[in-house]
């Protein structure tokens, strides 16, 4: 038995020897690099007693008394900001992913609406008589704003959505060219938007304050439910659009100025918030703009005349802005409508 055990032990020793010699015969490939070659060991214990977690937590939080953070670019010692990561995640995963859908959804709804319900005609037809609605300065300020906004909208969408929408289909080079051009154009036309916004506000603010009669417009959803709705020079929808352009436009202007001149603020988070507000505000305005364009052109007969010619048909005025009609003509909209009805 003992002899048997000895023989097994000898065999095991021999087998291990063979395995070791075989392992030694495996050579590294000719192009392998020995990482130890030429690299001097660094100073030991650079982290001190800190764990990796504590180290990065300090960097992230910013401890001005920590000598390890002297390379920090900011006076409070913050080297890394988690808000930057949150901002990037929000921008990449949500805004860039879904922003493009908002205008498309609005266009889709308008298309369906146009096909199913069609344009809103002047029920009693055109009278041939017109009323002056917008003067030349108002019209020029409106179209000036429209022109600048379209240029900014197109260039802004290229900047925001170029990477996910242009690069995969037309290539990175084309996206780079378009984004470079869009950036220059956007920065150039941005200040003109502020001029247009102030000018348009001054020219249109009169008549755009909300009134009690607007409540009826809301309850009847602008006449889609419950028949005719009275309104003054501007109805609730127009007033809402005016104030949306004013308020969101102001936000876009302020954030745009901050992004154009980033040294105006010290806190990086303000700039991060600015890009979010700027993008969301612009996409919101662009989306609603399609509704404005629809109602102003093919959606409502006679609307475009007010901004092209400055005049509207009397019947249009009676049907859509009866209180304004009564104010400017001194006549009752309902009585003149009855008089004109064929007996």
């Amino acid at each position: 038995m003992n002899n048997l055990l000895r023989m097994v032990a000898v065999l095991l020793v021999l087998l291990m020897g063979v395995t070791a010699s075989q392992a030694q015969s495996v050579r590294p490939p000719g192009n392998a690099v020995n990482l130890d070659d030429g690299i001097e060991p660094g100073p030991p214990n650079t982290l001190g007693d800190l764990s990796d977690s504590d180290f990065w937590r300090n960097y992230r939080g910013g401890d001005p008394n920590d000598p390890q953070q002297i390379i920090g670019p900011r006076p409070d010692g913050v080297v890394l900001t988690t808000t930057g990561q949150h901002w990037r995640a929000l921008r990449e995963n949500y805004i860039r992913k879904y922003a493009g859908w908002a205008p498309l959804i609005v266009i889709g709804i308008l298309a369906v609406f146009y096909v199913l319900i069609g344009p809103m005609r002047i029920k009693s037809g055109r009278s041939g008589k017109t009323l002056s609605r917008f003067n030349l300065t108002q019209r020029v300020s409106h179209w000036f704003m429209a022109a600048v906004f379209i240029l900014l909208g197109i260039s802004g969408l290229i900047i925001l959505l170029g990477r996910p929408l242009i690069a995969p289909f037309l290539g990175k080079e084309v996206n780079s060219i378009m984004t470079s051009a869009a950036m220059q154009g956007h920065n150039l036309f941005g200040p003109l938007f502020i001029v247009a916004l102030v000018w348009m506000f001054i020219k249109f603010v009169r008549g755009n304050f909300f009134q009690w009669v607007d409540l009826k417009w809301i309850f009847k959803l602008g006449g889609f439910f419950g028949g005719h709705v009275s309104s003054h020079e501007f109805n609730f929808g127009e007033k809402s659009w005016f104030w949306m352009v004013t308020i969101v436009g102001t936000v876009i202007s302020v954030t745009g100025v901050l992004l154009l001149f980033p040294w105006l603020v010290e806190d990086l988070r303000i700039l991060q918030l600015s890009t979010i507000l700027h993008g969301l505000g612009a996409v919101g305005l662009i989306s609603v703009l399609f509704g404005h364009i629809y109602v102003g052109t093919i959606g409502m007969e006679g609307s475009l005349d007010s901004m092209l010619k400055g005049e509207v048909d009397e019947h249009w005025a009676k049907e859509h802005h009866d209180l304004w009609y009564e104010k400017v003509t001194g006549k009752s909209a309902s009585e003149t409508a009855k008089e004109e009805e064929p007996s």
Partner: protein
Amino acid sequence: MSFLEFVEGPLFLVASAIFLLGVVWRVGGIILIGRKKDISPPKGSAAMGFLKGNLRHFIPRGIFAKRTALHLIAGYGFHLALLVLVLFAAPHIAFIQDRLVNVNLPEMPRWGFILTAEISFAGLIMLWVRRISDPVMRLISDWDDHIGSWLTFLVMLTGCLALQESHGFLRAQHMLVVDVWLIYFPFSRLMHAFTFFLSRGNSGATYGRKGINL
């Protein structure tokens, strides 16, 4: 030869030649066509009338000043700013020195360029939207007016889009539109840049000879 080299080289030379010959032909034609001889005794100087007619039109008449304020501001803003941009923008000076004539023009600082471009764009957009918003202007405007405005706008726009000077394509795009603009210029109302003084002078000379105080 790359596309950029083509639009900056041969095409630019051809376009410039058409521009120069066309302008000389048009202006020369107007001058050579002459005027019907006026046999009435002159009551004033036609030459002074020509000069006064030109100068007087730079300022609006008092009764029209308010009505034409927008037109006036936008018109002056656009034309003067465009002239400054063409002559004093750094990339233009480099191009003029490299391709045309070695002159030392002062370069505008970048902020000056941006500000001038803003004024020029604002002026041009306002003038065009006035053209489509004013019923009278719309009535007397034809395709030539709109094409001239849009081509000029595209020249300015493509120039500003290439401002970063990061891609040759953007520069080529700008130069291509400039070439088209130069070729279109002599055959369109863009010629008013050269004929305005003849038109104003003609009216001024007629009035001056009749002794009408302008």
